[in-house]
């Protein structure tokens, strides 16, 4: 009897403990049915080293590739597809054409590009389906990109990574 009571007490106590401890910041993004590991903190760190340079060297102030409204209107169920296409855009078109002369910045852009490649590899395993609307969104980004000279466009897209990282962070807190 006493043993049972003790056991009950300790179980409830431990349950209470679990509830009381702070929620752990998750490194996993849940995109629809797909889960990917993203080291947000690390991406931010590497990006902060190239951000100011990319923005200051961007001379086409009037043009914007990634509009915030474009990101926020991604439909539920299409976030996995959107991220897959967006990562493809960044890996194949932006980082491939982004050149920086300073070794420190080369290191950061390489780390970001490789991180995107490995997220992309994770997301490929999910086989998420793309709808026409999502494809159209990314096509519009490509169209804006093509209007500029390739080096400048890459510079601009790196400067707009803020929007991408913010969106990614939003996916973590949403679920």
């Amino acid at each position: 009897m006493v043993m049972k009571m003790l056991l009950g007490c300790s179980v409830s106590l431990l349950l209470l403990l679990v509830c009381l401890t702070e929620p752990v910041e998750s490194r996993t993004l849940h995109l629809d049915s797909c889960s990917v590991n993203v080291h947000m903190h690390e991406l931010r760190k590497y990006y902060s080293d190239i951000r100011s340079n990319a923005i200051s060297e961007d001379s086409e102030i009037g043009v914007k590739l990634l509009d915030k409204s474009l990101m926020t209107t991604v439909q539920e169920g299409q976030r996995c597809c959107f991220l897959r296409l967006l990562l493809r855009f960044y890996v194949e078109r932006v980082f491939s054409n982004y050149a920086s002369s300073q070794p420190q910045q080369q290191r950061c852009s390489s780390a970001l590009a490789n991180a995107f490649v490995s997220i992309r590899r994770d997301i490929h395993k999910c086989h998420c389906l793309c709808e026409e609307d999502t494809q159209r969104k990314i096509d519009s980004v490509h169209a804006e990109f093509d209007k500029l000279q390739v080096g400048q466009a890459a510079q601009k897209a790196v400067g707009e990574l803020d929007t991408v990282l913010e969106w990614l962070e939003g996916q973590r807190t949403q679920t």
Partner: protein
Amino acid sequence: MNPVVMTLRWTVSKLMMVILLDFPNDIWMLPAPKKVSMDSVDMRHTLRWRPLQASCNTTVLYSVQYQGEFELLLRNGSWVDAAECQQIPETHCDLSFDLGSDSDYNLQVRAQCGSQLSAWTRLSQPFNRRDTVMTVPEMLVTTAGDTLQVTFDKLPPLAAVSVTLWKKDDETQAAVFSMPAEQTVLHIAALQVGAMYCFRAQIVLDSGLHSSSTDARCVSITGAVPWKKPTTVTVTVIVMAGLLFAVFWSVVHCRPDACQTYFHKEPLPQSLKGNWDIKILMSPQEDELCERIPAVLSVDSKRRASKTDAESAAHLDNQQY
């Protein structure tokens, strides 16, 4: 055929072969670094290699390059110079900040003696930081009241700490707490006072890789809070209460007549009373001072002034004329 000629031919062909085999070394002159290995502990990645045995008049310098999947697949297999490991005399290179993703990385190193360069030596297989070796975490344990506080020292980045806690003699009812490495301190509150708790910790990576656990450590939750803070609070409260009591007591007990004995009226001293005798206070020097002003302005009266006045007046005169 003559056996001598045979031997000669054989020797010549052997010589040719040696020359051909040595050909790459002749181009580079310098032999490439050997025994290149990666040493990755707690997410600190260090590339190491054997120092070059070749004779070199100056110090042998080494340079390191890396190539992630991005460079390999999308940048036509180009290489990135490791920023902090270009022409270094050491035989190791910290690449913790360069290999900043979960991608596979190829690594290569070459030696340099003056203007002579060696060939690149590649790490035998690609490196991935998920294969880092995690060591057992070091921790410091303190208790305060019903709270257990575990502080971790030198946690690797990107890892999480997992702490398993149970009441002594009841390991089946264990609870697991997880904390990102950036946080370093874990608080576990609302523990049962008087009970003995045991726990062990380990470091866990996203990839599922983890260090081995620390030995189990047990602490009793005494419920005793550190004495300093409560003591200070109590002493302050007592002192304030005493002060307040004294003030109230004096207000109540100090009636006007009683106050007279403490605060009785002293008569004003003579010097502060109204009938002033101003003439006595006027000193003769003040008279002199009053006369000084015309002395500066008029030339006639200046001789009557004191020595310093005369000097200043003379100076003024000089300026005027």
